[in-house]
């Protein structure tokens, strides 16, 4: 089974470099799916501060990624999640999945981002241009998006 690459970091990531690292030296990959989560400027947001639980974060993401690698025939998997202060337009999270065929890459990429939203211990605090701040609240639709992967059973 493919061993996923997991990183939790404050620094930005380089999408092209990560894609190249995942496919370098292999001839069995036929498709690579990527998801990049980006800080969006809702309600005149000036910055978003991501807090996480060091230790548990890495464990939780590793478990979700290993689940994806067990469920789909992946030839590569990378998950990078940032923390700290981000401004609108900044990338927050990267999910890369590679496989021989597109369906496994696309499905596992969607699975990973759905589960990251509900099982990785991150919390977002929004800061606004006119002052004030608020913690982002968890959304029921995120729970529903993650739950559909359980309901589907062995969708791979």
């Amino acid at each position: 089974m493919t061993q996923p690459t997991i990183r939790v970091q404050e620094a930005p990531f380089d999408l092209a470099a990560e894609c190249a690292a995942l496919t370098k030296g292999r001839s069995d990959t036929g498709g690579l799916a990527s998801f990049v989560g980006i800080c969006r400027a809702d309600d005149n947001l000036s910055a978003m501060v991501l807090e996480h639980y060091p230790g548990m974060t890495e464990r939780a993401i590793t478990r979700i990624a290993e689940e994806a690698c067990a469920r789909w025939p992946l030839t590569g998997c990378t998950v990078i999640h940032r923390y700290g202060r981000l401004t609108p337009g900044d990338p927050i999270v990267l999910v890369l999945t590679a496989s021989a065929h597109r369906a496994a890459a696309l499905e596992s990429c969607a699975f990973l981002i759905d589960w990251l939203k509900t099982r990785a211990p991150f919390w977002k605090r929004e800061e606004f241009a006119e002052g004030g701040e608020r913690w982002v609240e968890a959304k029921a639709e995120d729970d529903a998006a993650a739950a559909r992967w359980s309901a589907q059973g062995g969708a791979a």
Partner: protein
Amino acid sequence: MRVLYFAWVRQKVGIAEEEVSPPAEVGDVAGLMAWLGTRSPGHAAAFADARQIRAAVNQEFASPDQPVRPGDEVAFFPPVTGG
């Protein structure tokens, strides 16, 4: 027992972590939350509505009836909002 707080739970309690020795009758996550809520006005505010709070024991998500023991690392936080 090491207790950690994150996000608005941390802000309300006023500290990020503390070492506590709850009485022997505190045996699970729900009991620990009730006991922690008596420690200061900040703790009381943080734990006022237990339904808003999630927990982890030794870095694994835990339900209210999960046992807690001396030496455990227990964390309290709002529902997660990563991704």
